[in-house]
């Protein structure tokens, strides 16, 4: 008797699983269109791409996806998470695509479908204004440098550190905002992050920070992140086309000018990242 009940329960569970899986096997772009909502996951501590300005969600991502949503005829629903849980949640199907953006790297294109580049991502150093002990990137040898956890910038910094006379004392932070705060407080002497980000921070906190050029490491680009499965292919193709179209008609350039104060010459795709 109990055995039969158990069998029934198992069968019901399997059926439930099967139906929910088959419901899952549906084109995400078509589903978003039908629902009128595209879910985008992101981290809101990555100015000027994504940040909270006095309670308001702003940045290049917000402008870009707003435009994409208009062209596609859907509303954008943002899901804001700490960066280290963004990619696991993408894989768990919590949202359709990740804004981020993330540096296009070899490791990432092995696992994810990266979009066409939206900006350059080469890494440089941010220091306190007037700090004369750091005038070029190699001056960070042996010093405490902050960087975001689980980021491509961290990997670049570690690789660069190994080439220096003395290893960099790498400090990992949950978000880059915490790293900037510690730079202001003097707990680290520099923060390594992509040029667009630190240029924005230096501009916003006028007189507090300075960017040390040139960038170190290899030339890299930022892209949005999706999964590689067939369900998401149409959506990510659409996003790629949208980025390239916006680049051609000058809308992307305007967004870059608005948020970075400069424009980048980005390729249409990065099939073989340098890093």
């Amino acid at each position: 008797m109990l055995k039969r009940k158990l069998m029934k329960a198992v069968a019901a569970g399997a059926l439930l699983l099967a139906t929910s899986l088959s419901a899952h096997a549906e084109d995400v772009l078509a589903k978003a269109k039908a629902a009128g909502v595209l879910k985008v996951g992101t981290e809101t501590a990555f100015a000027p791409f994504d940040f909270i300005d006095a309670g308001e969600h702003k940045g290049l991502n917000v402008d870009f996806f707003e435009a994409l949503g208009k062209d596609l005829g859907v509303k954008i629903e943002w899901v804001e998470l700490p960066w280290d849980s963004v990619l696991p949640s993408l894989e768990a199907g919590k949202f359709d695509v990740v804004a981020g953006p993330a540096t296009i790297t070899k490791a990432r294109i092995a696992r994810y479908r990266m979009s066409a580049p939206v900006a350059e991502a080469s890494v440089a150093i941010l220091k306190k204004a007037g700090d004369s002990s750091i005038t070029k990137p190699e001056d960070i040898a042996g010093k405490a440098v902050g960087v975001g956890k689980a980021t491509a910038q961290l990997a670049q910094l570690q690789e660069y550190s190994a080439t220096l006379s003395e290893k960099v004392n790498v400090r990992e932070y949950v978000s880059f905002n915490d790293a900037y705060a510690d730079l202001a407080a003097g707990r680290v002497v520099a923060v390594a992050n992509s040029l667009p980000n630190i240029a924005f921070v230096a501009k916003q906190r006028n007189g507090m920070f300075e960017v040390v050029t040139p960038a170190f490491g290899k030339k890299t680009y930022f892209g949005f992140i999706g999964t590689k499965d067939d369900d998401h292919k149409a959506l990510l193709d659409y996003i790629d086309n949208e980025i390239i179209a916006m680049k051609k008609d000058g809308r992307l350039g305007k967004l870059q000018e608005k948020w970075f104060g400069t424009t980048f010459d980005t390729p249409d795709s990065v099939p073989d990242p340098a890093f």
Partner: protein
Amino acid sequence: MTLKLFTLLLEAALKTLGISLVSIAIGFVIAMLLSAAIQSGKSIYLLPARLFISFFRGVPLLVQLLLIYTLLPVIGINVPGIVAAIVGLSLCTAAYQAENLRGGFASVPRGLVEAADVAGFNGIQTFLRIRAPIALRLTFPALVNEAIMILKASSLVSVVGIIEITKMAQDLASSTYMPIPIFASAALIYFVINSAIALLGGYAEKSLKGASA
């Protein structure tokens, strides 16, 4: 620190308060069911209840939240952040509340239970009318304490995308570069809410005492 920023913190505080209170209530119901299972003394109920308590007491709440949020979709249950937050907090507090209640159940005088037995109460009646009310009365201060703990622990639910007080304060501090007034305000809001819970708890405790006389 402008009024607008403070209003944003207060809005986030409503989320914290709502999620916490709902979780404490759901957790209390589950804790009572767990207690009933344990008090029944039958191993078919007892063992799952013990397993539940040791799991949800033994795994950090942060890990539980991430598991509920990212593991459940693998088996086809895709819950939104708010549901993951409430489920995580409820299951966790249920385990702790059940442990608190266990102390109360252990202190129920044997004579009362025997008297109920003689008076013809069945097991469920004895549980609902004799054991549970006495255990609840005895462990009420611990319950209030647990409510305060959960309200503070709810700052963790930002990992599943809920913007509650702590996350809002972090966002505001990093965009306005005024961490001190913002975190001080967040601390003040937590303090006021928890003082109110303690006050209400004290009042309820007194009226419960009156009822027992």
